[in-house]
């Protein structure tokens, strides 16, 4: 055993001894990739943190560090939180995956929760949300409402989560409007208002009158508002300040119930490593208010779809669906299993362009 791990375990022993006192609050750490004021992804995780404080009051202490780059810096921040006595640490970006696993190995008594990853350990859980359910609703509204039949899509990184969203939105848009075309722009960032605004403006100039975004800032909303005849959807957060038009609905990440559950599990000593992938049914994915800018019949159909997903009666990826190259993926009535969705690296039939390599 080397010096570092010896010292680390000594520190762990100290912190766990500290946690044994009944009065000692449970310390929960949050590592954020963006600023808490981004209005999107990190903002919603921070709402979850505040909900944990609200729920447990004095029994919990929360800490967070924002704007943490993925890689060595993330590892240092997590280690620092663990050393300072955190009992549970939420690491809220895909790029924190390897750092989370590394730090977790050094602090076996601290619990870690990594968002959107696939690597787990005895003290590392993973959690994510089925955002593609929300994309299905957006696709439906977009397909019905577009007049130019051009939908602009601001995509972040070509990872399965984003590709899944594109496929789900396209599938449901093309179902109600076979002429619809998706124009996809890859911006390679989760949060960069300048790049997002540029992408939105370029898409609008090319004739798109619906903008879907898989990035976290409200810049595309502002660009659409300026254009005047373009509709958008809030991403990660409600972005209600841009409603009722251009923002006509939204996907809201609601992490609060999950964060409260997991914090309680640590307090009770019942915490176990799990892989959670929840959607509309548990409330992890929320659909923001569909405004009156959407025609009443379209709104009713969209709400019916939400209800069907909530009740578990409808799965957005239900066959027949072919892959982009025309080969069969799902037979008529066949519902996709989670495996192919989690590793999704292909477009479905009708989506144009290639996934960047």
């Amino acid at each position, binding site marked *: 055993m*080397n010096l570092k791990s010896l010292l680390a375990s000594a520190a762990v022993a100290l912190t766990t001894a500290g946690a044994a006192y009944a009065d000692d609050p449970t310390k929960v750490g949050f590592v954020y990739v963006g600023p808490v004021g981004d209005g999107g992804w990190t903002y919603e995780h921070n709402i979850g943190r505040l909900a944990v404080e609200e729920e447990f009051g004095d029994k919990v202490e929360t800490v967070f*560090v924002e704007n943490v780059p993925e890689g060595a810096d993330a590892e240092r921040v997590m280690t620092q939180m663990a050393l300072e006595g955190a009992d549970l640490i939420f690491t809220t970006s895909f790029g924190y995956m390897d750092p989370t696993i590394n730090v977790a190995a050094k602090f076996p008594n601290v619990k870690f929760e990594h968002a959107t990853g696939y690597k787990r350990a005895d003290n590392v859980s993973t959690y994510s949300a089925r955002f593609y359910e929300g994309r299905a609703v957006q696709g439906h509204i977009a397909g019905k409402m577009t007049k130019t039949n051009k939908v602009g899509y601001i995509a972040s*990184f070509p*990872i*399965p989560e984003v590709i899944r969203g594109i496929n789900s939105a396209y599938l449901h848009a093309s179902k109600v409007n076979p002429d619809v075309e998706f124009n996809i722009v890859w911006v*390679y960032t989760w949060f960069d208002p300048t790049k997002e605004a540029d992408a939105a403006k370029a898409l609008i100039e090319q004739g798109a009158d619906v903008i879907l975004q898989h990035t976290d800032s409200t810049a595309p909303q502002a660009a659409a508002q300026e254009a005047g005849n373009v509709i958008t959807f809030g991403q990660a957060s409600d972005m209600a300040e841009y409603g009722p038009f251009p923002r006509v609905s939204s996907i809201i990440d609601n992490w609060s119930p999950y964060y409260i559950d997991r914090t309680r599990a640590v307090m009770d000593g019942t915490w176990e490593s799990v892989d959670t992938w929840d959607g509309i049914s548990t409330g992890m994915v929320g659909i923001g208010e569909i405004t009156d800018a959407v025609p009443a019949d379209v709104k009713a159909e969209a709400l019916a779809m939400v209800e069907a997903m909530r009740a578990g009666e409808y799965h957005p990826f239900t066959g027949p669906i072919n892959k982009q190259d025309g080969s069969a993926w799902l037979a008529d009535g066949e519902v996709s299993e989670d495996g192919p969705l989690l590793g999704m690296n292909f477009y479905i039939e009708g989506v144009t362009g290639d996934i*960047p390599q």
Partner: protein
Amino acid sequence: MLKLEKRPEPSRLWTAITPVIAVLATMVFGGLLFAALGKDPFVAIRTIFYDPLFSEFAWFYRPQLLIKGAPLILIAIGLSLGFRAGIWNIGAEGQYIVGAICGAGVGLAFYPAESWFIFPAMIIAGAVGGFLWAMIPALLKTRFGTNEILVSLMLVYVAEQLLASMSLGLLKNPDGFGFPGSRNLQHYPSAHNAEIISGWGIHWGVVAAFIAVIFAYVLLARHVLGFQIKLTGESPRAAKFAGVNPTRLVVVCLGLSGALAGLAGLFEVSGPAGQISIDFNVGYGFTAIIVAFLGRLHPVGILLAGLLMALTYIGGEIAQSNLGLPSAAIQAFQGMLLFFLLAVDVLTNFKIKFRNERVA
């Protein structure tokens, strides 16, 4: 009324003490900023400057200072040579990225073979990658007279696109379920830039940074190239008469700074970061510019400035986590440091005179 009068030559005294004044002024005004945010300024300043060095967990933070500071120092040393000669390489971030890609690429090409020569080969590839990327602005400048500031800066964005493409394509981990990012070199012993003594934070990049400091010191103090660099910076006309070849100097300065930035990228990707990913670069190449000036373009000054900058990063994170300070406040704090440095820099080159003194 105050009047500035240019000194015949920069004051040695002020050159030495302006960084100290800048740090003190940053502490005072940073403290006011923290107080305005409702935090105890003394606790905040202590958390940033004292806790990483002497608190309960200093045994963890001290090695982290070396890990965070080493790439800054390595890059800044290279930049300082060019800056002294009036050759402005602003694109170290791009050279850092390309060095990391080339180095990691060589390592991954051998995966999963284990051999002693893989890591040295990666080091060479990293340096060569950074060198070649810096040769683009160097050759464009010497051949066509383009501005190296613009070209090197723009190449950062090209390098970022290259990085994204590598993470998604050529270097993508085949066992990564389609997610972007290369294999983690930390799990590949022959390519892993591990700590030389466990728990000390000293990996090969830290060693390279110290060697670079000594190398630059000797170069500037003893070598004819160092003399040419200093002479060109102080008086380009005199340098010409002394037989300095400006073309050669541009190539050497940009090449050296590119190679060192490439090395920094290689040591980072094979060690602390572990993998090529889309967001691999976190701004070391730009921060190193601040470090170079904070260190007065002097090798020993850069060593201290790099460690100080690392201290504000690490202390800043502790302050965020323990005191709830927003990260924007920490960034403003770091910005103040450069601002005050440049502001008090005036005293190095100018004397302050009172007007009535002159009248009398």
